């Protein structure tokens, strides 16, 4: 395998939650004087090592709060790890949520530009893909209407169309395909397939074992911020389903 596209070494990430909320100077000063500035540390990721090569598709499973989204945010460069290093080579298309950064007062077309710019593209690059984005989103004349008038499905379609208008080296998806209708999901999967064939690395968080089996060549199971299992999707999913199924049976009995 060539050098990994994504390489995490000993990545830990800590959300420092103030035990008492100290959102102001005044309170900060009072607590500081008393020497009572204490924080509750919440380690969302603990010592995660991960290497993902070009063209791999990695599925990430785990319970709510296991650190899946935090891991994706670290790889997307939204959050910087508290400890450890995260190196990502190449372009990243992070879809942590569909329609992030939309200005609801602007039209769909204006949002194509705004969103493309927020993703780090230039005006010229957006001009080149504009018609294709409008086509993929299937919004027709609605593209000239303010986004506040869109249904959630329409917003999702437009968001996905913009975020995947350029083929990235790394595509990051955080449970975003669950929102649209079947036809939309099919189109998205088709596009993902095309990207993967062309060598895009995909990171994929999903609660659907079927989707993970279909898309991913490898899978990890995150549990309380640690990688609990890694390997072939079937093995990891079975291991993940194990204790959950067991717990379910136990609570039934």
């Amino acid at each position: 395998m060539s050098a990994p596209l994504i390489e995490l070494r000993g990545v830990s990430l800590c959300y420092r939650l103030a035990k008492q909320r100290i959102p102001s100077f005044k309170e900060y000063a009072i607590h500081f004087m008393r020497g009572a500035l204490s924080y509750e540390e919440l380690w969302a990721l603990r010592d995660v090592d991960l290497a993902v090569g070009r063209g791999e598709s990695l599925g990430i499973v785990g319970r709510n709060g296991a650190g899946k989204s935090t891991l994706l945010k670290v790889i997307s460069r939204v959050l910087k790890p508290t400890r450890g290093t995260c190196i990502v080579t190449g372009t990243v298309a992070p879809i942590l949520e569909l329609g992030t950064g939309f200005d609801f007062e602007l039209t769909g077309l204006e949002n194509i530009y705004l969103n493309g710019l927020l993703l780090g593209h230039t005006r010229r690059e957006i001009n080149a893909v504009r018609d294709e984005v409008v086509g993929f989103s299937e919004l027709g004349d609605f593209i000239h209407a303010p986004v506040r008038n869109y249904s959630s499905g329409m917003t999702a379609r437009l968001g996905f169309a913009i975020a995947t208008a350029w083929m990235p080296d790394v595509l990051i998806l955080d449970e975003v395909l669950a929102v649209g209708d079947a036809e939309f999901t099919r189109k998205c999967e088709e596009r993902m397939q095309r990207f993967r064939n062309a060598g895009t690395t995909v990171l994929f968080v999903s609660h659907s074992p079927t989707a993970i089996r279909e898309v991913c060549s490898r899978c990890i199971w995150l549990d309380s911020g640690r990688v609990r299992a890694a390997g072939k999707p079937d093995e990891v999913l079975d291991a993940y389903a194990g204790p959950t199924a067991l717990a379910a049976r136990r609570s039934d009995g």
Partner: protein
Amino acid sequence: MLSVVRYRDLVRALVLRDLNVRYRRSTIGFLWTMLQPLLNMLVLKIVFSALFRVALTNYAVFALAGILFWNFFSQSIVTSMNSLRGNAQLLHKLPVPLFVFPLSTVLSGVLNLGFALVPLFVIMLLTGAPLTPALLFLPVAVAIAALFTLGAGLLLSPLAVFFIDTVELIAVVLQVLFYLTPIIYPKDILPPKVAWIVRFNPIRSVLETFRDPIYYGKVPPLEHIAVAATVAIVAFVVGAYAFRKSADRIPFYV
């Protein structure tokens, strides 16, 4: 800072959106932003011009130029401080370089200041103040003011994320600074006991670099420009350094 080049189109779009919100969406928006400093100046003129008659021959132009400068400075800072928190949703989901928010705020402030110069020139014509070639120096003066304001915005906007009452605190500080800067009064009228405060107030040098070409019709002396430029560069370097140091922590707090 390479990303300034990469994200220049984004900065431009954010500036345009800001102007759009301010002017196009409300039909009297443009008129209103022009009217506010004018009314302000009018009140000041009625109240103070008799008082400062000896020191200032054209109080209306003096005060209006000062107010326009101060509005640019204070509004840019307050908007910068709110810009990160206002885009919290975005910061949690997209790897956007955070400096684009204070930067676009200050740049749209510059454009607003540019628009506001039009009524100022009208007032100058109406009051018989000459429009001199010294006005051509204004772009340089505005650039110095913008760099200074950007520095302050970069320094304060992360602080506003970490402590929610920064905005209130700075509002008070700005109020005090307004009176410690010779915006609506000539600096010679101060008693020597307090004159030093105004003398060493760094904002004064930036203000005067902007106002001298308007009010006196003269390009300020080179050493004054040098002081103002130094103040601006220091403010920018300090602000940029503080912003860079705290940028990684910002998404955790908004």
